[in-house]
Structure formats: C-alpha cells, structure tokens
C-alpha cells in the first residue's frame, strides 16, 4: 500500500465520515492482514468524536489554525534496569529493537506504514553509530524505511520526538516512530590517543623494521585507557558535581534532597504496584528471563538515606548516590502521527503534542536549570499559565537539581536577574508533579527518558482527566527542553 494512496483515502475519510469507516478498514485489512487489529480499530472508530466538538471541559484546545494536529498514538518502553543487571550482555540496538517491537505489538502498526524512524542515544556504541537503522532493521521494519539517530544528551529522545513532529508538520511524513536508547552496562573504552596513533601508523608501516620501531615506541603509560565520563567536555566538571553546586547555590539542603528522592521512590512503587506504568512492555532477554518491571525502585527510610556519604563533593557535599538518578539501561519508543493519519488508520490517539521549546544556558553554573528556562517560554507560546497545567512530568536528574529548579521558578529575583523576565513563572504544585515517580526511582537511560516523560503525561492525563500536561527536562551542555501536551478527547 503506497503512502499516497493512504493519504488520498484519508482525505476522503475526513470529508465523508460515514464512508471513511469502510475505507479505512479496508486499508488496514490490506496493509496488516491482522484481523484482531482491524477489529480493534473498527471498534474504536465506532465512536468518532470530531475534535471541533470537544468541549467537555472549560479549557480551550490548543489547536492552531493552519497548523497540523500531531498526535501521540502510543508509547512504550522496555523495563528500565540498573546497568550491569539483566541486560548486561546485550548491545544498545538490542534494547532499541525490543522497544520498537513492543511498539509494533502494542499498536498493531503495519511495519511498512511508518515513513521514518528517529532514535536518540547519548553514549554511542561505535559499531552501531546509527543505532536507529540497526534497531529498525532488526525489528523487522521495512528496509525501505529510513532511520537516523540524534543526540542531545538527556533530551535526545525529546529531540527525536520533535524531529518527528517537524517532519509531519512540514508535510513530509505522516507516521514517524521516535525513541531513544541508552546502554550503560557497556560503554566504549578507548585506547589512549598516543596508543591509537601508534596503532594507526602500524597499519601504514610497510617494513618489518618500521613496525618494530613503532611497537618499540609504546610505553606503559600509553596502555592506560580513556574512560568516558558523565562530565561536561567544556568545563570538565562531572554532572553530579555541578548538581551539588547548583543545590548549594539555591540553598537546597541534604534533607530536602533526601525527602524528594524518597518521594520519588515511594510514588514509583505505588505506581508500579497499582499497574500505572502501562508503558512498560515485557522483554524476553536472550539467554535470560522475561523482564517486565523496572528494578531500580527502592523506597528506603530517611535514616538509611541520611547515612550515605556525598558522592561528588567530599566531604561536605549534599548529592549522594541515593538522591541522584542511577546508571540505567533501557529503551523507549513512541508512535507519532498526524491526527488525520491516525484517525484514518483507525487509531484512538492518546494526546496531542503541542508547542515545544529548546533552551540553553551557561554549561558551568546553570548546567541543570533547563526546566526553569524552558517552562515559562513554552507556556507563553501556548498562551497558558502554570495554573492551567494538570500534569507535570519533569526529568529528575538529581533531587537537588529538581529542588533548585523549583526554587528558581519560584523566585522573582532569579527571573528578573538571569532570565530577563518581569516575574517568576511559579513552581508546579507537588500534587501534580511526577506523581508516578521519576528518573530518580524509575531510572534514567539518558536518551530513553524523554519518551517516557511524554507517554507518562499522556497516560496521567487520561487517568486523571486533565487536559494539559507539561514535560520539562535538563540536559548536559546546559540545554533544556519543554513541551506542552494536550489530552486527546476521550
């Protein structure tokens, strides 16, 4: 089934609502050959609610004239596991493939219905530098579906999603899969530069003498490897160190950080036990068991948390292993479509993806303040205030970083002095904030977190009956991102 035909069909479907049903059904039948999938979409299609009629709540829709409505059809993720555990022997593309297959299973999406795949990753496995393509091929996507990999530190999959949004908004694609993968159980450890240079010269050395003299030039010191660090290249400061300084700058105490960390784990546990984390798919790990749960959620007591020594600034720092996100393996994927396409394919979308922004600031002293800068900007774009938001999902890199952002957002002085704004944006109310846990407890596979945040907002909006959600995250390089998400009428 060619794309253009689907598009034609879709247009027809829109103008003639009754006719659309049979048409779209036939499309699915042909495309998928999957009876249950057809049945499901047919069922859904029985209750069409044109979005123009949607007005159950007093709040307005954020649809803009002349701008395509873009929807999140669904999102999934592999369980997020502490690195070095069950996923230890995999490779990044294995995890990414699992997420992609999970998305296919969950949505019943015909593999060739996808126009494009964008995937995020931070620490690149050199063998699979375009991990998007390797994973897509392995997941059985058509080899005619192009795929590229993006990287933007902890907001890599946010970048993947907004790339998808851009492709659809520009009219170049109708259905894009976006996602992200991070695999910290194995990272590229390189030979030292001097050693690499010798080895490369060795390839070119023609005579035995030349080779021997090159080998003879190797010194013991050349053998010490280069380890990747979670440190800023520009400042050489590790992120935890920066987080500790940020917490100190905003006067965030150790107690506040431990309390927030405990809150994250407690809420995550509750959400896990209550079956809220429906984005998690089960994954049969080759040679191992089926994994179906995140394994980093560990509610402890305040006393236990208080015992830990600072991990970065010693001995007087406040950031510890327990109030920081841990090294995690995991992958996520979402299906993003134009609303027309989704409806035409018989989907019931979960949410609209609306305005988004990227921000950046000083990578030294404001490394992790992305949410503070991004939030007022994206709200302004959408014509909303903080009070309009029903669901907040912020990336929890460190408890201290979250608390510092909340304090910054609550400060007129900060807004005026550093952001050039007249007033503060305000801090989100905690009852709406990361209520199903966050990166601190669920885990933080760098490039997979963005999709988790967006999917969680969509699910929480559905569960809680809210209309607007806000995603915000910080990232290495002093960058940040925020996106407004609108519930799809139920």
């Amino acid at each position, binding site marked *: 089934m060619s794309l253009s035909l689907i598009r034609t069909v879709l247009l027809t479907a829109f103008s003639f609502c009754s006719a659309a049903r049979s048409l779209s059904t036939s499309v699915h039948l042909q495309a998928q050959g999957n009876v249950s999938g057809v049945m499901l979409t047919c069922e859904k299609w029985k209750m069409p609610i044109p979005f123009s009629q949607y007005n159950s709540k007093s709040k307005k829709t954020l649809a803009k004239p002349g701008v395509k409505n873009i929807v999140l059809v669904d999102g999934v993720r592999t369980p997020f596991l502490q690195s070095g555990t069950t996923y230890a022997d995999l490779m990044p593309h294995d995890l990414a493939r699992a997420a992609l297959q999970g998305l296919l299973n969950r949505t019943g999406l015909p593999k060739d219905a996808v126009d494009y795949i964008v995937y995020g990753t931070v620490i690149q496995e050199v063998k699979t530098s375009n991990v998007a393509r390797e994973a897509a091929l392995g997941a059985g996507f058509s080899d005619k579906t192009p795929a590229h990999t993006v990287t933007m530190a902890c907001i890599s999959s946010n970048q993947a999603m907004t790339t998808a949004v851009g492709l659809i908004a520009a009219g170049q694609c109708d259905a894009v899969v976006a996602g992200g993968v991070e695999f910290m159980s194995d990272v590229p450890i390189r030979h030292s530069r001097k050693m690499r240079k010798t080895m490369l010269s060795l390839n070119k050395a023609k005579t035995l003498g030349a080779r021997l003299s090159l080998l003879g030039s190797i010194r013991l010191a050349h053998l010490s490897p280069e380890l990747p660090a979670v440190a800023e290249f520009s400042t050489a400061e590790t992120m935890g160190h920066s987080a*500790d300084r940020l917490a100190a700058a905003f006067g965030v105490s150790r107690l506040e950080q431990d309390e927030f960390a405990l809150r994250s784990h407690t809420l995550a546990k509750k959400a896990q036990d209550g079956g809220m984390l429906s984005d998690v798919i089960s994954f049969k790990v080759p040679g191992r068991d089926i994994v179906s749960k995140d394994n980093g959620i560990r509610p402890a007591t305040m006393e236990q948390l208080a015992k830990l020594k600072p991990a970065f*600034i010693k001995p*007087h720092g406040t950031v510890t292993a327990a109030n920081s996100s841990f090294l995690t393996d995991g992958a996520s994927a979402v299906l993003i479509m134009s609303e027309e396409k989704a409806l035409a394919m018989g989907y019931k979308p979960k949410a609209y993806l609306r305005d988004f922004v990227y921000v950046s600031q000083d990578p*030294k002293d*404001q490394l992790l303040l992305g949410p503070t800068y991004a939030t007022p900007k994206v709200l302004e774009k959408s014509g909303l205030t903080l009070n309009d938001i029903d669901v907040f999902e912020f990336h929890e890199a460190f408890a201290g970083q979250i608390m510092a952002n909340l304090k910054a957002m609550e400060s007129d002085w*900060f807004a005026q002095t550093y952001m050039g704004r007249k007033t503060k944006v305000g801090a989100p109310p905690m009852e709406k904030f990361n209520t199903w846990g966050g990166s601190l407890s669920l885990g933080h596979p760098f490039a997979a977190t963005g999709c988790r945040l967006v999917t969680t907002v969509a699910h929480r909006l559905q569960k809680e009956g809210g209309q607007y959600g806000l995603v915000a995250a910080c990232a290495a390089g002093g960058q940040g991102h925020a996106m407004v998400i609108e519930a799809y009428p139920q």
Partner: protein
Amino acid sequence: GGGSLLCLSLSAARTHVSYEVKDNVAVVRINDPTSKVNTLSRHMQAEMVEVMNEIWGNAAVKSVVLISRKPGCFIAGADINMIQACKTAEEVTSLSQEGQKIFDQVEKSPIPIVAAINGSCLGGGLEFAIACQYRIATKSKKTILGTPEVMLGLLPGAGGTQRLPKMVGLPAAFDMMLTGKNIRPDKAKKMGLVHQLVDPLGPGLKSPEERTIEYLEEVAVDFAKGLAGKKVTVEKKKGLVQKIQDFVMGLPPVRKQIYKTVHSKVMKQSKGLYPAPLKIIECIQTGIEKGNAAGYLTESQNFGKLAMTSESRALIGLYHGQVTCKKNHFGKPERDVKKLAVLGAGLMGAGIAQVTIDKGVATILKDTTEEGLARGHQQVYKGLNDKTKKKSLTTFERDGIMSLLSGQLDYRDFENADMVIEAVFEDLSIKHKVVKEVEAVIPPHCIFATNTSALPIKDIAAASKRPEKVIGMHYFSPVDKMQLLEIITTNKTSKDTTASAVAVGLKQGKVIIVVGDGPGFYTTRCLAPMLAEAVRALQEGVGPKKLDSLTTGFGFPVGAATLADEVGIDVAAHVAEDLGKAFGTRFGGGNVEVLKMMVQKGFKGRKSGKGCYVYGAKSKEKKVNSGAEDILKSFKLTAPPAVSADEDIQYRLVSRFVNEAVLCLQEGILPDPVQGDIGAVFGLGFPPCLGGPFRFVDSHGADKLVQKMKRFEEAYGNQFTPCQLLLDHAKDSSKRFHK
C-alpha cells in the same frame, strides 16, 4: 542563643570586625569599610583582639569561624602605610612583635578557629590564617595565598617565617617566601596549606559572590562544629613521600646543605643587591636550628631592619607607583572600545591582539601577506595555548578567546572599529600611507593609535584629517609579558582620546604612563644614550659578557648586550640614528656604524639568530658572536683609563640613562617622577632595587651623581653634561623627587 544577644550589643561600636554566635560557633566577620581590601591595620588588629577576647571569655562558644565579608579578599596583608609611618627599625620590630603575639594567642586558642578564605589571603593575612587551627578556601579564581613581602623588600614578620616551614616543609616554605609567588587553592591543598576546598557557586537566589561567601561560611561552621566535637581531626595522615621527606629534613647535615644551596641560589639571582631574601633564610634557619624563641626574635628584628633599607623603600615606592599607574586619570571615555583593529601581525601586533582578545574584546588582526598573518595568528594561539598547559586557561576558554580574533588581509569590518592600533614597519612614509588608508574606512569616532617606539606622534599625525584622534601607544616586547604601556599624546590629542587609550591599556592589564610627544618620548629616549654608551664600551674592548655582568651586577635584570639583541640591533640602529639626528652629539658615544655594519652582516639580534651573541644552539652557555667581535675590533677605541674602571663603566651607563630621564621631567615630556620611575623599571628593566631613576637620584644623592658625571664629562664631553634640574637637586640636598 543568649550569647549572640550579648555580642550584638557590644559590637555596636566596632566597624571592622563583627561576630555572631550560631549554634556555639562564633562567626567572626571582617570588613574594612574604608577600603576595597582588608588589611591588618592598627584599627583592624585592635578590634580583632577585642573580639577574640570576648569570644574566649564566652564559655558557650565552642569554636570560631573567621571569614571576610568582602567578595574578593580575605586579608590582603599588613597595612603598608603603617610600616612606612615608622621612623626607626625598633618601631617596626615592635609592630612585628605585636603581630607575633596576637597570632601566638590564635595558635594557642583553647577552642578551634577555622579560617574561611575567599579571595586574596596574602602576607599578614596568610600568617593569620596559618595561625588558625583549620583552613578552608574557595576554589575561586580570586583566591590566592602567598607571602609577597619579599617583593616589597620585607619578610613575613608575624610568625610566617616560623610557621610556614613546619606546615609545608622547608623547600616549599623557601619557595613561597623567597619568590613571593601566589598559590592557587588546588596547589595550596596539595601542599597542606589548607585543609578543605569549597567550590564557588553560580547563580542561585542571590548573586554568586554573595552566596559563595554564605556557603563558605556554612561549610566552615560545619567543620568548626566537627572540630569542637572531635569529629574532624586536624592531623592529616602523612603519605610515604611525606614521611621520607620529614625524615630526610630531620637530618642536620641535609638541612645545612639546603641552607647553603638556597643561599647561593639567592646570591646568584639577586647579585646580593636585595637584602630581604637573605634575611628570610636567616629567620627560617634560626627558628629551625635554635628554636622558637630565637626564631621569632630574629624575625621581628630582621623585619625592623629591612623596613629601614633603601631597597625596601624603593620596592614599596614601585608598588605605590604601580597602583597609581593602574588608574585612569583622564576620566571615563565617551565610548567603550568594543572592537579593536591591529595593523601588522608581527611580534608587536600579534602581542597586542593577544592581550586584547583575552580580555574579551573582539579584535581584527590585519596584515598584508598571508604568511605574516599566519605567523601572527600562530603567535597568539601559542601564547594562549601555553596558558592551557599551565592550567591557567582551559582549552575551551582558549577556543572562546581565539574566536574573538579575526585575521584578515583587507579592511573588511573596519567601519565598526572603535580603535585602530598600527604596528607596521617604523618608517614615516609607510605610517603616513597607513593613516590615509585607515581613515578612509574607519568611522568618525574611531581612534588611531600608533605603536611606534621612536617616531614623533605629531609627525605621524601630520597625515591625519583628525589629529585629535591620533595618539601613541608604545608597547614593549613581548607584549604579553611586559607590563608597561607608554601612551604618548600630542598637543592636538583630545582628552577623550587619551582616556580611551588608557582605558584600553588598563583592560589589557597594563601599567600605564602617559607622556608628552617628542623624539623617543620618554622610554626610548632614556634607553638610547645608555645603549650608545654600551656600544662605546664594546668598542673600547669591554666584551659583551663583561658588559652584561656589569649591568646585571648593577641590578638590571638583563645585561646591556643581551638587551640590544632582544630589542633588535636593527631597531637599535634605527633609533640611534633617528635620535642622534634629533638630539645631536649628546646622543653620541658609540659609533652608529657599528650597529649598521652588524645589521648588514645579518646580526640583527635574537630574532635573526645572531647579534652580540649566537642563538639557537641549545647549550646553556651563550656564545659571543665572533663576527660581531670582528666588527667591534675594526671600530676599536682606546679606553681612557681614568673612567674605565668597572664601577665607572656602570655609572657611565646609568648616569646617561638617569640624566636623560631627569631632562624629560625638566622638559615636561614626563608629567611626574612616579611615572618616570614606573616607566624605567617596568619598560626598560631599570634596577627595581633602586626604585627607578628618580628614586635613585634621591637615594644616591644628586650631588654625588653630578660629581661622577663631571668626571666623565671631562673624558667624553657633552654626553655627560648634567641637565639643569639635576644640577638644581645637586645644589640643594633638600630637593627630592619623592617626598
């Protein structure tokens, strides 16, 4: 609780030192309201003693934190004026003993005292800190620790010579006290000078500076509590290296050898012209070999003696002069220079570009050839990259700085330049051509500065349509190392143009003198007669090595022959000829043809590999250039025996320099003796221990100098005729250049 109420009521009258008690920790805050920096003035000391006695008398207080409220300064040192006000060595000795007593009490404090250091912690400030039981310093770029007293011809006189060796070991203590160098926080921690480091903070709910001090205080209070509760121990576990070093240092013969080595090293470097380093060695040695009491006594007595030496006065004079010359006395310019253009990417041009971009000012570096530009660009890059190797700059900072440099061959973007500094070849017709070309492209407000070392600015300005915007900015090579900038104004230069040039120079980190226009201005004019005399001495058969040792023996950091090579024989020939034309036989002495012949043979100095010496070979011993020797032989003069003793040669060189300096003041080229001294020392290497030509006349005696000059005058003529102002000072000994 109750304690803090009590202290609030008592401290109401105090202005420099205050304290509050938090959780049984007394936080003592120092802040001199009358100055940008805290110094240990009498006032500060008196309040400190009062406060400490109150704290020690308060049983509720279990520990103390000592912190400054000034963002960039803990305590910058003792109050120099307090020392200068003393009339006798005994007075200064008793000052020292008072300081020793206070810090002794601090050291023996029954409760732990934590020094929380942010910003400069120097001299007396460091001595205070090391008397405390614990030290925490911020890693701020402004935080530096050191004992700079030696640079003022003094020594750490409040126990520093006694405590430092015990704290950091003998070699490190010698290094600190004999060089006076600043120690950065990381190094200080490694040396054991501080116990903990605190990171500076970025923006939060308060300004970074304010919050960093608060944070430092919070951390220090925690440690103070820990020390009081014995949860924190002061003693660090010693590593193996440390243990071995301690053992070795415990052996008297080893120590003796160290004293001997250090002594001979000091003698070699200072030529015995500086008494302070020798006294420092004596203090340290006495303390270690004869015990505390003897050590402290020697320290206070030597401190008193040093304060009365002419060397210390000279060095302190230079310190004050430097402070004066780091200010803009011409007001705030109407416009900030945001974009600078430098013409000519040679040694000078590239150097100027480097010191401009590294202060964040966008700079165009224009040359006429690609090769010239590439060489200049590489010079700037290397200058910055060397800083990354020394870790004073990160590679990222280097790249960011380099991005401000625009190397180009055309006049693109000159329409946005606020100032142009030309550093093209020293030839009036080329300079005129450049003035016209540049004025065709720059905006009306743009200043045209010329970096010439001898051509009168008014002659260059003659080609300008807007002479009020033309000014001389004479930099010294290498620009990134030499501190001096000589600014030359013509009678047409506007005040705003001068203000702007000074502002740019200050931004570039320069010490600035502003002088009047004339051939050679001030610095070149002083140097030229001395170099002419040096050439004469060479012609008379004094070899380059001998000449160098005579000049360095007088206190010049670089010998006269080496200096000529550094400046460039071609430049020296050029200057000698130009100034010879302008000033006539008075600037004679050596034959200019010697220099010209050397240039002809390619002996242009260091840059060409050969001058008076041969360069390039890696051997330590500098070799005299036999080619140059041959030339000198062909111009051989007979030395008049009456004025050719070693000391005579030294004074022939120096008196011509000094006489010309005084004449510059007499003629109004120099506005005052302070700038004269600063220019001579920072630009030409006039012996710092003499404090500059004017202070030298004061301390040596104008009459004695005139007597010597008359003797030389008899042998050589008008080159040694003292100027009127010098004669006036010789006649009336109450006349002094410095009060």
